[in-house]
Protein backbone atom coordinates (compact mmCIF):
# COMPACT_ATOMS: atom_id res chain seq x y z
CA UNK A 1 0.00 0.00 0.00
CA UNK A 2 1.15 3.54 -0.78
CA UNK A 3 -0.36 6.67 0.73
CA UNK A 4 0.01 10.42 0.40
CA UNK A 5 -0.75 13.43 2.56
CA UNK A 6 -1.83 16.63 0.79
CA UNK A 7 -0.15 19.83 2.01
CA UNK A 8 -2.00 23.14 1.76
CA UNK A 9 -0.67 26.52 2.82
CA UNK A 10 -1.63 26.36 6.50
CA UNK A 11 -1.81 22.58 6.96
CA UNK A 12 -0.22 21.71 10.30
CA UNK A 13 -1.01 18.04 10.88
CA UNK A 14 0.56 16.88 7.61
CA UNK A 15 3.84 15.68 9.14
CA UNK A 16 2.09 14.01 12.12
CA UNK A 17 -0.13 12.08 9.71
CA UNK A 18 2.84 11.07 7.55
CA UNK A 19 4.76 10.02 10.68
CA UNK A 20 1.93 7.74 11.86
CA UNK A 21 1.34 6.19 8.43
CA UNK A 22 5.03 5.44 8.02
CA UNK A 23 6.11 4.54 11.54
CA UNK A 24 2.98 2.98 13.00
CA UNK A 25 1.48 1.36 9.89
CA UNK A 26 4.64 0.91 7.83
CA UNK A 27 2.98 2.49 4.78
CA UNK A 28 5.20 4.30 2.26
CA UNK A 29 3.87 7.87 2.36
CA UNK A 30 4.58 10.93 0.20
CA UNK A 31 3.71 14.57 0.83
CA UNK A 32 1.93 16.19 -2.13
CA UNK A 33 1.95 19.99 -2.36
CA UNK A 34 -1.37 21.68 -3.18
CA UNK A 35 0.00 23.25 -6.36
CA UNK A 36 1.16 19.88 -7.70
CA UNK A 37 -0.86 17.25 -9.49
CA UNK A 38 -1.67 13.97 -7.79
CA UNK A 39 -0.27 10.90 -9.49
CA UNK A 40 -2.52 7.87 -9.66
CA UNK A 41 -0.22 5.68 -7.60
CA UNK A 42 -1.70 6.14 -4.13
CA UNK A 43 -4.12 3.70 -2.51
CA UNK A 44 -5.00 6.18 0.24
CA UNK A 45 -5.07 9.99 0.12
CA UNK A 46 -5.07 11.92 3.41
CA UNK A 47 -6.28 15.52 3.71
CA UNK A 48 -4.72 16.65 7.02
CA UNK A 49 -5.75 19.01 9.78
CA UNK A 50 -4.68 22.63 10.06
CA UNK A 51 -5.90 25.99 8.82
CA UNK A 52 -5.67 25.85 5.03
CA UNK A 53 -5.48 29.40 3.65
CA UNK A 54 -5.92 30.74 7.20
CA UNK A 55 -9.52 29.44 7.30
CA UNK A 56 -10.47 32.63 5.44
CA UNK A 57 -13.96 32.94 3.96
CA UNK A 58 -15.00 29.54 5.36
CA UNK A 59 -12.70 26.72 6.57
CA UNK A 60 -11.79 24.58 3.56
CA UNK A 61 -13.49 26.86 1.01
CA UNK A 62 -10.37 28.13 -0.73
CA UNK A 63 -8.39 24.88 -0.49
CA UNK A 64 -11.14 23.32 -2.56
CA UNK A 65 -9.89 25.18 -5.64
CA UNK A 66 -6.25 24.08 -5.33
CA UNK A 67 -4.94 22.20 -8.40
CA UNK A 68 -4.42 19.06 -6.32
CA UNK A 69 -8.11 18.96 -5.31
CA UNK A 70 -9.20 18.46 -8.91
CA UNK A 71 -7.20 15.23 -8.90
CA UNK A 72 -8.46 14.28 -5.42
CA UNK A 73 -12.05 14.62 -6.71
CA UNK A 74 -11.29 12.53 -9.80
CA UNK A 75 -9.55 9.83 -7.77
CA UNK A 76 -12.32 9.84 -5.14
CA UNK A 77 -14.73 9.08 -7.96
CA UNK A 78 -12.44 6.20 -8.96
CA UNK A 79 -13.10 4.71 -5.49
CA UNK A 80 -9.69 5.54 -4.01
CA UNK A 81 -9.67 5.75 -0.17
CA UNK A 82 -9.79 9.40 0.93
CA UNK A 83 -9.47 10.35 4.62
CA UNK A 84 -10.03 13.95 5.76
CA UNK A 85 -9.12 14.85 9.32
CA UNK A 86 -10.40 18.07 10.98
CA UNK A 87 -9.62 20.77 8.37
CA UNK A 88 -9.47 17.88 5.89
CA UNK A 89 -13.09 17.03 6.76
CA UNK A 90 -14.03 20.71 6.20
CA UNK A 91 -12.26 20.64 2.81
CA UNK A 92 -14.12 17.46 1.78
CA UNK A 93 -17.48 19.03 2.72
CA UNK A 94 -16.68 22.25 0.83
CA UNK A 95 -15.62 20.11 -2.14
CA UNK A 96 -18.99 18.32 -1.87
CA UNK A 97 -17.27 14.95 -1.73
CA UNK A 98 -19.08 14.64 1.61
CA UNK A 99 -22.55 16.03 2.36
CA UNK A 100 -23.21 18.91 4.78
CA UNK A 101 -20.99 21.60 6.22
CA UNK A 102 -19.01 22.33 9.41
CA UNK A 103 -20.31 25.47 11.14
CA UNK A 104 -18.71 27.45 13.96
CA UNK A 105 -18.89 25.64 17.32
CA UNK A 106 -22.15 26.36 19.09
CA UNK A 107 -20.52 28.16 22.03
CA UNK A 108 -17.98 30.11 19.92
CA UNK A 109 -15.00 28.56 21.72
CA UNK A 110 -12.06 26.78 20.19
CA UNK A 111 -12.30 23.31 21.74
CA UNK A 112 -9.15 21.33 22.51
CA UNK A 113 -10.13 18.24 24.47
CA UNK A 114 -10.41 14.46 24.51
CA UNK A 115 -13.87 13.20 23.52
CA UNK A 116 -15.56 9.82 23.72
CA UNK A 117 -16.95 8.42 20.49
CA UNK A 118 -19.22 5.60 19.44
CA UNK A 119 -18.63 3.99 16.07
CA UNK A 120 -20.95 2.64 13.39
CA UNK A 121 -21.43 -0.95 12.31
CA UNK A 122 -18.92 -0.65 9.50
CA UNK A 123 -16.17 0.14 12.03
CA UNK A 124 -17.20 -1.19 15.46
CA UNK A 125 -16.71 -4.90 14.67
CA UNK A 126 -13.05 -4.17 13.93
CA UNK A 127 -12.35 -2.37 17.24
CA UNK A 128 -11.48 -3.88 20.62
CA UNK A 129 -13.97 -1.65 22.48
CA UNK A 130 -17.33 -0.02 21.92
CA UNK A 131 -16.36 3.53 22.87
CA UNK A 132 -13.07 5.09 21.79
CA UNK A 133 -11.43 8.30 23.01
CA UNK A 134 -9.75 10.74 20.63
CA UNK A 135 -8.58 14.35 20.80
CA UNK A 136 -10.42 17.18 19.04
CA UNK A 137 -9.02 20.67 18.41
CA UNK A 138 -11.27 22.93 16.35
CA UNK A 139 -13.28 26.12 16.10
CA UNK A 140 -15.63 24.98 13.32
CA UNK A 141 -16.74 21.43 13.99
CA UNK A 142 -20.48 21.89 14.31
CA UNK A 143 -21.75 19.49 11.63
CA UNK A 144 -24.88 20.67 9.85
CA UNK A 145 -26.90 19.16 7.03
CA UNK A 146 -30.46 19.71 5.84
CA UNK A 147 -33.07 17.30 7.31
CA UNK A 148 -33.37 15.35 4.03
CA UNK A 149 -29.58 14.92 3.82
CA UNK A 150 -29.38 13.87 7.48
CA UNK A 151 -32.11 11.29 6.89
CA UNK A 152 -30.16 9.87 3.94
CA UNK A 153 -26.85 9.61 5.79
CA UNK A 154 -28.56 7.87 8.72
CA UNK A 155 -30.38 5.43 6.44
CA UNK A 156 -27.19 4.66 4.50
CA UNK A 157 -25.20 4.11 7.72
CA UNK A 158 -22.78 6.90 6.76
CA UNK A 159 -22.21 8.21 10.31
CA UNK A 160 -19.15 6.35 11.57
CA UNK A 161 -18.30 8.50 14.62
CA UNK A 162 -20.65 10.15 17.13
CA UNK A 163 -19.75 12.14 20.26
CA UNK A 164 -20.86 10.23 23.36
CA UNK A 165 -20.30 9.64 27.07
CA UNK A 166 -17.72 7.03 28.08
CA UNK A 167 -20.66 4.60 28.28
CA UNK A 168 -21.78 5.30 24.74
CA UNK A 169 -24.67 7.67 25.51
CA UNK A 170 -25.08 9.92 22.44
CA UNK A 171 -27.51 12.43 23.96
CA UNK A 172 -27.01 16.21 23.53
CA UNK A 173 -25.31 16.35 26.96
CA UNK A 174 -22.25 14.77 25.36
CA UNK A 175 -22.14 17.00 22.31
CA UNK A 176 -19.15 19.38 22.52
CA UNK A 177 -19.85 21.63 19.53
CA UNK A 178 -23.55 21.49 18.60
CA UNK A 179 -23.21 18.96 15.75
CA UNK A 180 -26.44 17.53 14.34
CA UNK A 181 -27.01 14.01 15.75
CA UNK A 182 -23.67 14.32 17.62
CA UNK A 183 -21.89 13.66 14.31
CA UNK A 184 -18.08 13.59 14.55
CA UNK A 185 -17.37 11.66 11.35
CA UNK A 186 -19.19 10.57 8.19
CA UNK A 187 -18.45 8.66 5.01
CA UNK A 188 -19.84 9.17 1.54
CA UNK A 189 -22.56 6.82 0.32
CA UNK A 190 -20.10 4.47 -1.40
CA UNK A 191 -17.92 4.30 1.72
CA UNK A 192 -14.54 5.24 0.23
CA UNK A 193 -14.39 8.80 1.62
CA UNK A 194 -14.06 9.37 5.38
CA UNK A 195 -14.22 12.75 7.10
CA UNK A 196 -13.85 13.30 10.84
CA UNK A 197 -13.20 16.12 13.29
CA UNK A 198 -11.22 14.01 15.85
CA UNK A 199 -7.49 13.47 15.28
CA UNK A 200 -6.61 9.75 15.17
CA UNK A 201 -3.02 10.61 14.19
CA UNK A 202 -2.56 12.29 17.59
CA UNK A 203 -3.56 9.13 19.45
CA UNK A 204 -1.78 6.31 17.67
CA UNK A 205 1.27 5.61 19.81
CA UNK A 206 1.82 4.27 23.33
CA UNK A 207 4.13 7.20 24.08
CA UNK A 208 1.19 9.56 23.67
CA UNK A 209 -0.91 7.59 26.16
CA UNK A 210 -3.66 6.55 23.77
CA UNK A 211 -3.73 4.22 20.77
CA UNK A 212 -7.44 4.44 19.92
CA UNK A 213 -6.56 6.47 16.84
CA UNK A 214 -4.40 3.64 15.56
CA UNK A 215 -7.31 1.23 16.05
CA UNK A 216 -9.65 3.55 14.18
CA UNK A 217 -7.31 4.05 11.23
CA UNK A 218 -6.66 0.29 11.09
CA UNK A 219 -10.43 -0.34 11.07
CA UNK A 220 -10.85 2.17 8.22
CA UNK A 221 -8.10 0.44 6.22
CA UNK A 222 -9.73 -2.95 6.93
CA UNK A 223 -13.20 -1.74 5.94
CA UNK A 224 -11.59 -0.76 2.66
CA UNK A 225 -10.00 -4.14 2.04
CA UNK A 226 -6.99 -4.02 4.35
CA UNK A 227 -3.48 -2.69 4.16
Amino acid at each position, binding site marked *: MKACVVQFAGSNCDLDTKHVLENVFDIETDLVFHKDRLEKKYDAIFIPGGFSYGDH*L*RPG*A*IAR*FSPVMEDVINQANEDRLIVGICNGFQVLC*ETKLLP*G*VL*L*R*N*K*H*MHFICDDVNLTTSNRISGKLSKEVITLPIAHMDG*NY*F*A*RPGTLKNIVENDQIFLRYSSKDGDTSRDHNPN*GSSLNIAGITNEKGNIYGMMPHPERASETELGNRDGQELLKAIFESFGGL
Partner: protein
Amino acid sequence: MIKMRVYINSKQGIIDPAGKAIRLGLLNLGYNDTKQVNCGKIIDIEFNHDNAEKAKIETKDMCEKLLANPNMENYSFEIIEREAHI
Protein backbone atom coordinates in the same frame (compact mmCIF):
# COMPACT_ATOMS: atom_id res chain seq x y z
CA MET B 1 -14.39 50.73 -13.01
CA ILE B 2 -17.16 49.00 -11.13
CA LYS B 3 -17.11 48.17 -7.46
CA MET B 4 -19.51 45.46 -6.34
CA ARG B 5 -20.45 44.86 -2.72
CA VAL B 6 -21.42 41.29 -1.83
CA TYR B 7 -23.44 40.60 1.33
CA ILE B 8 -23.37 37.11 2.85
CA ASN B 9 -25.61 36.09 5.73
CA SER B 10 -26.63 32.86 7.45
CA LYS B 11 -29.84 31.34 6.22
CA GLN B 12 -32.88 31.41 8.51
CA GLY B 13 -32.66 28.63 11.07
CA ILE B 14 -28.88 28.16 10.80
CA ILE B 15 -27.13 28.66 14.11
CA ASP B 16 -25.23 31.98 14.13
CA PRO B 17 -23.02 31.97 17.26
CA ALA B 18 -21.33 35.28 16.33
CA GLY B 19 -24.70 37.04 16.03
CA LYS B 20 -25.76 35.54 19.34
CA ALA B 21 -22.55 36.72 21.05
CA ILE B 22 -22.97 40.25 19.66
CA ARG B 23 -26.55 40.35 20.90
CA LEU B 24 -25.33 39.39 24.39
CA GLY B 25 -22.82 42.25 24.22
CA LEU B 26 -25.61 44.64 23.25
CA LEU B 27 -27.71 43.38 26.18
CA ASN B 28 -24.76 44.07 28.49
CA LEU B 29 -24.61 47.61 27.10
CA GLY B 30 -28.24 48.07 28.10
CA TYR B 31 -29.93 47.54 24.72
CA ASN B 32 -32.74 45.33 25.91
CA ASP B 33 -34.90 45.67 22.83
CA THR B 34 -32.95 43.57 20.30
CA LYS B 35 -34.74 40.45 19.14
CA GLN B 36 -32.06 38.86 16.97
CA VAL B 37 -28.63 39.78 15.58
CA ASN B 38 -27.28 38.18 12.45
CA CYS B 39 -23.56 38.54 11.76
CA GLY B 40 -22.59 38.24 8.12
CA LYS B 41 -19.78 39.20 5.78
CA ILE B 42 -19.23 42.00 3.28
CA ILE B 43 -16.89 41.43 0.35
CA ASP B 44 -16.05 44.31 -2.01
CA ILE B 45 -14.91 43.39 -5.49
CA GLU B 46 -13.42 45.93 -7.84
CA PHE B 47 -13.61 45.10 -11.55
CA ASN B 48 -11.16 46.46 -14.10
CA HIS B 49 -13.97 47.37 -16.53
CA ASP B 50 -17.28 49.23 -16.44
CA ASN B 51 -19.56 46.61 -17.94
CA ALA B 52 -22.26 46.32 -15.26
CA GLU B 53 -24.04 43.34 -16.82
CA LYS B 54 -20.79 41.34 -17.08
CA ALA B 55 -19.87 42.24 -13.49
CA LYS B 56 -23.28 41.12 -12.19
CA ILE B 57 -23.17 37.79 -14.03
CA GLU B 58 -19.63 37.14 -12.80
CA THR B 59 -20.43 38.12 -9.21
CA LYS B 60 -23.40 35.73 -9.14
CA ASP B 61 -21.12 32.98 -10.43
CA MET B 62 -18.45 33.82 -7.83
CA CYS B 63 -21.07 33.68 -5.04
CA GLU B 64 -22.31 30.29 -6.14
CA LYS B 65 -18.86 28.80 -6.68
CA LEU B 66 -16.91 30.21 -3.74
CA LEU B 67 -18.13 33.24 -1.80
CA ALA B 68 -21.24 31.66 -0.23
CA ASN B 69 -22.02 28.11 0.77
CA PRO B 70 -25.62 27.42 -0.32
CA ASN B 71 -25.98 24.92 2.54
CA MET B 72 -25.89 27.68 5.12
CA GLU B 73 -25.67 31.10 3.53
CA ASN B 74 -27.70 33.55 1.43
CA TYR B 75 -26.04 36.18 -0.71
CA SER B 76 -26.95 39.42 -2.43
CA PHE B 77 -24.89 42.11 -4.14
CA GLU B 78 -25.08 45.65 -5.48
CA ILE B 79 -22.91 48.07 -7.40
CA ILE B 80 -21.56 50.63 -4.93
CA GLU B 81 -19.21 52.60 -7.22
CA ARG B 82 -19.16 53.16 -10.91
CA GLU B 83 -16.67 55.17 -12.89
CA ALA B 84 -16.53 55.10 -16.67
CA HIS B 85 -13.08 54.81 -18.22
CA ILE B 86 -12.11 58.02 -19.96
